[in-house]
């Protein structure tokens, strides 16, 4: 477990946090890693808080529990800061990245004195600018890869381009926008 990076995603049903975790697992897998990507299922409904997880490792992963002491946390919906203990167990050597229009200083009071890295990113603005609609998961995915460095920038963009081409084979018009959103988010937190 020592060479395993653990990531916890907090989002709301319908925002794509689970999909983002699975996309991250996919991209890491393509770079030769052992991966896990899995959601924690509560009552499934739009807007309900959901949690998803990633383990990314150089060696096979056997543990099948949720993640309680993550290296990184991604908060896809800032309204969760008031209701969910997003920094619970988060390692101080790690970091949290939050989708918000607020500054780091503005969100700090919600983070229970967390002393590790804190990043904010306006995924709504990026998404609306690049895609014309609000899909926060692509920008958040790029942000966590830039922060955690679970793979190189080159590997990430190469794998995501391949992944989008496959995923959006019937909607090629959205590929460019998604890639643009990834780049913009990556560079913002880099």
């Amino acid at each position, binding site marked *: 477990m020592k060479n395993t990076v653990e990531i916890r995603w907090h989002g709301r049903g319908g925002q794509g946090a689970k999909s983002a975790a*699975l996309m991250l*697992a996919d991209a890491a897998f393509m770079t030769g890693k*052992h991966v*896990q990507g*899995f959601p924690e*299922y509560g009552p499934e409904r739009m807007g309900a808080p959901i949690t998803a997880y990633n383990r990314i490792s150089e060696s096979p992963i056997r*543990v*099948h*529990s*949720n993640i309680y002491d993550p290296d990184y946390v991604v908060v896809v919906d800032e309204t969760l800061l008031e209701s969910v203990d997003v920094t619970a167990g988060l390692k101080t050597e790690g970091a949290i990245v939050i989708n918000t229009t607020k500054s780091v200083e503005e969100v700090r009071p919600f983070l229970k004195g967390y002393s590790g890295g804190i990043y904010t990113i306006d995924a709504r603005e990026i998404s609306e600018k690049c895609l014309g609609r609000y899909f926060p998961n692509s920008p958040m995915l790029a942000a966590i890869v830039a922060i955690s460095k679970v793979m190189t920038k080159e590997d990430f963009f190469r794998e995501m381009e391949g992944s989008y081409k496959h995923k959006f084979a019937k909607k090629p018009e959205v590929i460019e926008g998604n890639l643009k959103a990834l780049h913009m988010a990556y560079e913002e937190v880099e």
Partner: protein
Amino acid sequence: MAIRERLSGNEAVSYAIKQVNPDVMPAFPITPSTEIPQYVANYIANGEMDTDFIPVESEHSSMSATIGASAAGARALTATSSCGLALMWEELYVAASNRLPLALCLVNRALSGPININCDHSDSMGARDTGFIQIYAENNQEVYDNFIQAYRISEHRDVRLPIMICQDGFITSHAVENIELLEDEKVKEFVGEYEPENYLLNADQPMALGPYAVSNYYMETKMAQNTAMNHAKKVILDVGREYGGVSGRSYGFFEEYRLEDADYALVIIGSAAGTAKDAVDALREQGVRAGLLKLRVFRPFPDEEIAKALSGCKVVAIMDRSESFRGKGGPLGAEVKAALYDHAKQVRAYNLIYGLGGRDFTVNEAEQIYKDLEAYDKAGKQFEEYRYVGLRG
């Protein structure tokens, strides 16, 4: 060369189904197994397999239609979970008593109520006396491998019993992990064609299936089923060994993890075994001789083999992911204790209930159980023979 992939447990078993390409699959969707018929239906629609898919109106009907297809002489299967399995109940006995070698892909989860969609083993443990062979998996790789072996076991002429290929709901079914797949040709060659001996569509040999059996016949039928279940033990081992030659992964009744010289062991089924293995390694580093027996085959129950594997242990904890309400533990606990009573009385055994309704089971909790076993052994500390772990504080 094995194919390196990443798939969820549902994707993995669906891929195995595609490679085996059975004749008929009737199914009704239920969380969290819904993805299995969904993926299979996609493969069929895309022309990647030619199984006849029958959408039915309930699980009672899906098992009935699977029975009908199997009786007709087809290689048949269905998939379900939880209450879906419960609704099949009477049909499960019909499948087994008619000696139909059909397959059921089960995604284990809790039964209502309270309403809960998450993992435990209540569904399949409740069906343990139906006459199905039951094989469990730790992860996506094992459920894939187990399905490829399924028909070789169930269709064997010494067996001819239905088989349940189980995996943990969500924990395995919905988790994407690395996996190694076999090439289609290798799978096809390993599984082979189904050549039923007695079947309804054989016009040359008219037969009745499922007739009324008066008291003069019923009991012999049950005896014959039990004999077949005993025969399944050898077949499961033979097939598991042969599969090792094809895939590099051999299978037996159970996996022994650092058990050979262990003082303290967990007996456990399914995905939690992987978590407990991490605890075993951590404890070994601290000098605690911890080990694990991960049970793969629950029906037929390998009692003598389990007792032998545990015979060198001082204290063991039998981990049940379902409750039997006998007031003294769960089904695995009862059966392993019976095995120890018959074959290894010196081993002290405790029965712990964990993980009901998706309650998480962590490495720390597993470590604590081993430490409890050690404390009991060294200080003569007494435990309740049966207790729940992982309850809210």
